[in-house]
């Protein structure tokens, strides 16, 4: 069975290597400050005893006061999963570092989040809309989007 790396324990491991990067944590996930998300994810990928080589899914949720970007990581060798989140307050000019240099699999998913949620990924090689056309007004998966 695939095990879930419990968020609280994951937070402890991250805290040891990247102090002050944890914003919050629960059993389900560890929440990282968006500024440090790239280095923490790089650490999770490269650390020998964690070995999260696969970015299984990448998504975002609009909680009105803030946006949450959610990384579902998978280690095939150890058969474990973990969930990392980052919270972006506000609604305008949202940016977060891209992880395409770590996982190619993020390429299309980050473009999709920009298209539908309006979160820009810095240093993405091709940051443009993917499902909708250039010039489409607004980002439809936001809760305040009106047809």
């Amino acid at each position: 069975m695939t095990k879930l790396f419990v968020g609280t324990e994951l937070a402890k491991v991250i805290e040891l290597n990247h102090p002050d990067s944890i914003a919050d944590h629960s059993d389900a996930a560890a929440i990282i400050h968006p500024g440090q998300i790239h280095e923490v994810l790089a650490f999770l990928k490269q650390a020998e005893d964690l070995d999260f080589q696969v970015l299984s899914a990448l998504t975002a949720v609009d909680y009105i006061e803030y946006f949450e970007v959610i990384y579902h990581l998978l280690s095939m060798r150890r058969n474990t999963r973990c969930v990392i989140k980052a919270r972006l307050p506000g609604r305008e000019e949202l940016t977060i570092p891209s992880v395409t240099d770590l996982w190619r699999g993020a390429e299309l998913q980050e473009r999709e989040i920009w298209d539908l949620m309006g979160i820009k990924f810095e240093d993405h090689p091709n940051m443009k809309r993917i499902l909708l056309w250039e010039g489409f007004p607004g980002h439809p998966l936001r809760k305040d989007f009106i047809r």
Partner: protein
Amino acid sequence: MAIKTEPITINMGPQHPSTHGVFRLRVTFDGEVVVDVEPVFGYLHRGTEKLAEERTYVQIVTLTDRLDYTASMSNNLAYVRSVEKLGGIEVPERAQYLRVICAELQRIASHFVSIGFMLQELGAFGTPLMYCFRERERILDLFEMLCGARITLSYMRPGGLIQDAPEDFWPALGILMESMPEYIDDLEGLVTSNEIVLARTRDVGIISPELAVNGSVTGPMLRASGVQWDLRKANPYEVYDRLEFDVPIGYQGDTYDRYLVRVQEMRESVRIIEQCIKQIPGGAIQSEAPFFVRPPVGDVYDAIEAPKGELGFYLVSDGGISPYRCKIRAPSFINLTVLRDMLVGWKLADLVVIFGSTDVVLGEVDR
């Protein structure tokens, strides 16, 4: 004196017979050789994730049918499993077995479509595709017995299934499973050692295992590259832990291996279904789940091994009757990440075959 040449950019699609729907490839050629590829899609975008936010948990089942329309059962299964995990809903054992039977039948049907179209794109126009569709038709007949529909099935519900299989389903399933290995042999006799197929697909469009893992590629495409990863083994959902089956893998990661892995997976699916027929217990097919499911506040991600790869649903509940957010991790969509790496350096005719072997369904890519 050298002849002056310049690259030419061609639009393949959105209306093109080899693109399995409305998909556009902006390809830059140097003569006949591909130097750059940019996939353009979204023509079939219906906003499924947004629509899901306005529907109840049960109503969304019908939306999932329309994602990968060659594998509706698998989509249903992935979705209802996420809801059950979110709401803590139990499923009776009989329903679990029936779900596995349906998912494996659907895998066979979906792989038939995939192989048939790949051969069509090789230039084997019509005949092999019709062989594949003949067999698929028999599976669709079984689905019709189960729920009255053939493509958009909506057979599963959170907590079980809509209805039990009718009496005459079981003998029909038994007969089909008995003859299925023969059908697959017929197909393999036509294709597997065919000289033209070998010449056109071997060592063509290779994905290295490192790239496949890094690019989040899943399903037969990942296994063809030699990575042994199948969610049915890694995280046995429903009753897969009680069933015996192998996970076929390829070695080269080329177009031919992707075909071979699919054929072998079909044989394994037959094995799984035969065991299910023997083991299936009697009893209820639906637990006491309420019609308006109200899961507690929280979020959950659950994935199954669909015919195309890891199909996952990420659901966020705010305690209401419809999800706050419903994200679909579509395997065909993410498998397209490595499309450029597969195609650059090959010729126009290979491009069509390589794209065919990725088994992309646009309903799922565009959602």
